[in-house]
């Protein structure tokens, strides 16, 4: 079976600074892949290149059979980028819910505006997805009236409403108070359990260990090591993985990871 995401030899430059160096990876259907690594390792940039929130500098990105080439002008592949964005769901660290719309309207927005769906069908889809993340009771609230954890669950529902082929999570719990992280991770675990294809950038090692099929460690713009969670967490081979896990274990006893 063809992979949902196939990245080959991706480079990304910010000005003269190279933040991604020859990154290649695949995500297969129904697979949950977690990317871990220190801040500034290029994890988020890698994720954001997939739906073109960042323009890749060189290399190919293939999503669900649609291939775009880095370095080519965005204008020339606008249609392709649009298609890819429709097939990927993105969840941001800062939630980015639309503050002028209710929870329900936030989730309906994609189907109605992007897919031109009639409001009745869109509402049905929105309600189903809000049900899925346990937020249906808040459907008429506005984003500023709900907690961070609840916002992130709505943001997940908003992405799911577009019925994407793969969900991209960009540090979905990093902006949350510690006591709110659990509810978001629980939703993500249930998605993983239901067979959603997921690529997750995270600092939550427990989540990576429990929910991921594969874990990728990034260091200074490169993939340092990848493997199954058990391999990687119990027998890390790469020195950067070892350092990362060491830092995590010593930090866990005193203070939560940021």
């Amino acid at each position, binding site marked *: 079976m063809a992979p949902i995401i196939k990245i080959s030899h991706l480079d990304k430059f910010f000005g003269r600074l190279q933040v991604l160096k020859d990154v290649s990876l695949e995500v297969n259907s129904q697979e949950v892949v977690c990317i871990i690594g220190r801040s500034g390792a290029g994890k988020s940039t890698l994720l954001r290149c997939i*739906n073109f*929130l960042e323009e890749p500098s060189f290399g190919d990105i293939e999503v669900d059979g649609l291939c775009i080439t880095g370095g080519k002008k965005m204008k020339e592949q606008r249609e392709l980028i*649009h298609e890819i*964005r*429709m097939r*990927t*769901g*993105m969840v*941001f660290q*800062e939630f*980015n*819910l*639309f*503050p*002028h719309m209710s929870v329900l309207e936030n989730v309906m*927005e*994609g189907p109605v*505006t*992007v*897919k031109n769906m009639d409001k009745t069908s869109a509402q049905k889809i929105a309600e189903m997805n809000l049900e899925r993340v346990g937020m249906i009771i808040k459907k008429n609230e*506005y*984003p*500023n*009236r709900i907690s961070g954890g609840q916002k992130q669950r709505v*943001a997940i529902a*908003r*992405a799911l409403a*577009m019925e994407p082929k793969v969900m991209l999570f960009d540090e979905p719990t990093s902006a949350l108070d510690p006591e709110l992280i659990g509810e978001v991770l629980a939703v993500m675990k249930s998605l993983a359990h239901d067979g959603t294809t997921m690529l997750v950038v995270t600092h939550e090692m427990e989540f990576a260990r429990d929910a991921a099929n594969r874990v990728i460690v990034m260091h200074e713009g490169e993939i340092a090591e990848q493997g199954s969670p058990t391999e990687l967490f119990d027998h890390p081979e790469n020195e950067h993985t070892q350092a990362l896990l060491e830092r995590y274990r010593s930090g866990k006893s005193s203070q939560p990871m940021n």
Partner: protein
Amino acid sequence: MSNASATAPAPKSQADLIYDMQMGIKRRFSIGVAISWFVMLAVLVFLFSSTKITLGSFTFKTIHIDTAFIRENLPFIASGIWVTIGISALSIVFATILALLAALGRLSRFPPIYALCTFYVSLIRGTPLYLQIFFFFLALPQVGIILPGLWAGVLALGLNYGAYMSEIFRAGLSSVSKGQREAALAIGMTQGQMMQRVVIPQALRFAIPPTGNEFIAMLKDSALVSATGFVHELMWRATKVGRAQFHNLEALITAAVFYWIMTLVFSYFQSRLEARMSRGER
């Protein structure tokens, strides 16, 4: 405070006492402000009371106004209020549309569009409003466009305020975070859909209170239109009767009182609106 609570039959909690004290401070302040306002208003009225006080060789005189003239011509001047409000309202609507277009144009990557917007703002902000108003009355007929006085005034005021207000809308547009734009793009919106559905609604929300401020300023600047002689608003009427009967000062003071009352009323609604927007669903 502690003495008061000791003698009270049912002692209040610490929080109640602090709250009462804070409310007391606020109340005393408001009362103080109100009294001071009243005193200043009385002084102002006194300055126009045609009083003459002689103390030895020193004589103190206040301004003399003919109240009979004011009473007689009050209805004539007052009937300009609605013209003033009307011209200001029409102009602010026109200005708002222009300001939004100019602010959006400045986001354009197409040089002529960007240039058009900066050129417009620069030209309008670089010349006096008074001059611009005359320009439309003098220049347009030359090319065969003869607008009724009111509309030429609205055109001039709208263009002028649109240029200044484009800065408000520009700030409104940039108040919408990058994350909002990215979220819109990530669910597959086009640039146009993103602007229309996500960015502009939030920018407008940001721009509404300052637009109210501009309206209040516009109420007074609309007086400049009277200079052309074709719009019978408050200022025009005051000048007309004042000049005809050699009571310019009385007529102008009457108009000033009306302007002041209008701005007081609109400022009240404006501050209500601002308070509501600031705790709204932002």
